[in-house]
């Protein structure tokens, strides 16, 4: 288990992270969400002991060896080196045996669908493949903690799915995982917990379910309702967007507005789509980032 206790980091007078607290247990995934400059990478740097917190404590469970697989935002490997030599060099530094490391390398190249042979040079790989090789370097020694800084940037959807699979497999093996992103698409599929940072401050925190609950089913989509324009002045509806002739997306002041609205609309006959849902993480993010 790792615990952050009221951790703050100042650079001179500038407050990059303030009062961050969380706990992470074995096999849990935490995602740090925030715009550029929110303090995500700084949080990782403190966790990696690259820099010391100005205030607060970072506590590691005593029986952990503190092995960390880290994929930074700045990605790269030795371009002139072959995949095999590069990975075996890292493995040796981790104290891993050569032959075991080579087996792991082949296994992971297969799993992540890296196009190329172990003897290929890094510079001959595409950006996505090079990134996958770097991910192998983080995963192959089964670290206790995996830190991925913006892991999805630069990956196409197919490769993003492969990455998600790999992360979930690590989770099932008991690895603690923290990743950062400013793109919400994959957060929902992966995270047990979310922390949203804005200018270093925690603006939202918790498991996805409770975050959704906090906002309620306040988003509504209606399709195929011919009197849709009448909803413009309906009490409790905000920010309504009309499209086509009979469709609209809107925000509700609270969940209960949906009920009264449903009753009213159904008086006018059949409506094929009435979809009342939680706001997307994306819109929560935009709301909170303001």
């Amino acid at each position, binding site marked *: 288990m790792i615990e952050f206790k009221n951790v703050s980091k100042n650079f001179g007078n500038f407050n990059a992270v303030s009062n961050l607290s969380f706990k992470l247990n074995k096999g849990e995934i935490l995602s740090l969400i925030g715009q550029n400059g929110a303090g995500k990478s700084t949080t990782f740097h403190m966790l990696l002991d690259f820099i010391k917190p100005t205030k607060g404590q970072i506590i590691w469970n005593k029986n952990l060896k503190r092995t960390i697989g880290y994929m930074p935002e700045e990605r*790269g490997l030795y*371009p002139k080196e072959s995949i095999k030599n590069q990975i075996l060099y890292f493995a040796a530094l981790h104290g891993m045996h050569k032959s075991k490391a080579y087996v792991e390398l082949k296994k992971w190249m297969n799993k992540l669908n890296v196009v190329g042979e172990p003897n290929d040079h890094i510079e001959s790989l595409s950006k996505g493949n090079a990134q996958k090789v770097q991910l192998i370097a983080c995963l192959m020694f089964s670290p206790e903690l995996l830190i991925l800084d913006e892991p999805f940037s630069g990956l196409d959807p197919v490769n993003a799915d492969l990455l998600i699979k790999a992360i979930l497999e690590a989770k099932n093996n008991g690895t603690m995982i923290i990743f950062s992103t400013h793109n919400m698409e994959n957060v929902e599929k992966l995270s047990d917990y979310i922390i949203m940072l804005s200018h270093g401050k925690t603006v939202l925190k918790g498991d996805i379910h409770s975050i959704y609950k906090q906002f309620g089913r306040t988003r509504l989509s209606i399709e195929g309702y011919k009197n849709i324009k009448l909803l413009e002045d309906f009490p409790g509806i905000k920010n309504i967007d009309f499209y086509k002739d009979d469709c609209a997306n809107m925000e509700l002041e609270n969940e209960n507005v949906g009920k009264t609205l449903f009753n009213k609309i159904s008086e006018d006959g059949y409506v094929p789509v009435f979809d009342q849902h939680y706001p997307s993480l994306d819109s929560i993010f935009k709301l909170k980032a303001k």
Partner: protein
Amino acid sequence: MNKINYKQVFIIAMYEFKNSCKSFSYFTSLLFPIVIFCSFDKYINNDFKNKTINITKYASQIFAISIPIIIFAISILYISALANLIARDKSSKMSEMFLSFVGAKEQLLGKIMGIYFLIVIQFIVFTLFVIVYTFYTNTPVVIDFINNINLSNLAYSIINIFVSFLLLFTWTAEFASYITDSSQTIVATIPTMLFAAMACIQGVFFSVNSNWFEAFSIYGIIFFLAASFPPVGTFVVPSLILNNVMPIWEAYIILLIQLIISSILFNSAAKRYKYGLLNHKKSNIILKAMNDEFKKKG
């Protein structure tokens, strides 16, 4: 303070050593002194062989003068090699990931050791060359030369060269860690090169006239203090023992103090090196490395 993981240091050293051995520029630098040696061949054959010049009388002096020159020559060849290793890490953007499983001290020491291995190979190759040359051309002048240098002084001089480079290399690495693209590599070598050049010139002047030295005079004590600061002593002390004016035990004390101060400086340099590795902003690397902002921010 964390203990240094020497296993990692050794793995890095071997990796960098093997990689450099494969490079073309290393072979150039390996053969470079041999070419120079060959150009003196004519003089050695004519004058020394016919004993028109008595080498035995001057062996110690010649050797004394050559120590600072050897240190400077090695600087030219290997300081940029070291800066290149670090520039490669920085410009390929892998140093941040690397830092997550290999500490800054291990990285720094590993790279310096790797370069030391290259220097050792250079010494071995050159020694082998001289031996082969001596037997092949039947020139006893080299043997005469070595016979006239006290072996313990020779041993001291060689250890001295390696102590000298601990700090020269550390400085270079510190500047090089601020490189953001490989075009800045040469800039990172400038401060150390300038220092080595100045110290070399002083060392040569010093060895021409070292008879003023008296261990227990006021000048002797001032000298002792100044030479204890690395790598100043490494450029000037060998000439004093080779000219038999400084007792060898005092020379070893100076060397030991320099080694201790070097390792203390190494520790603080490792912190700046780490800060440099994490720094991705393009800037004047010399100014950036010299200003202590890492203390406020790190």
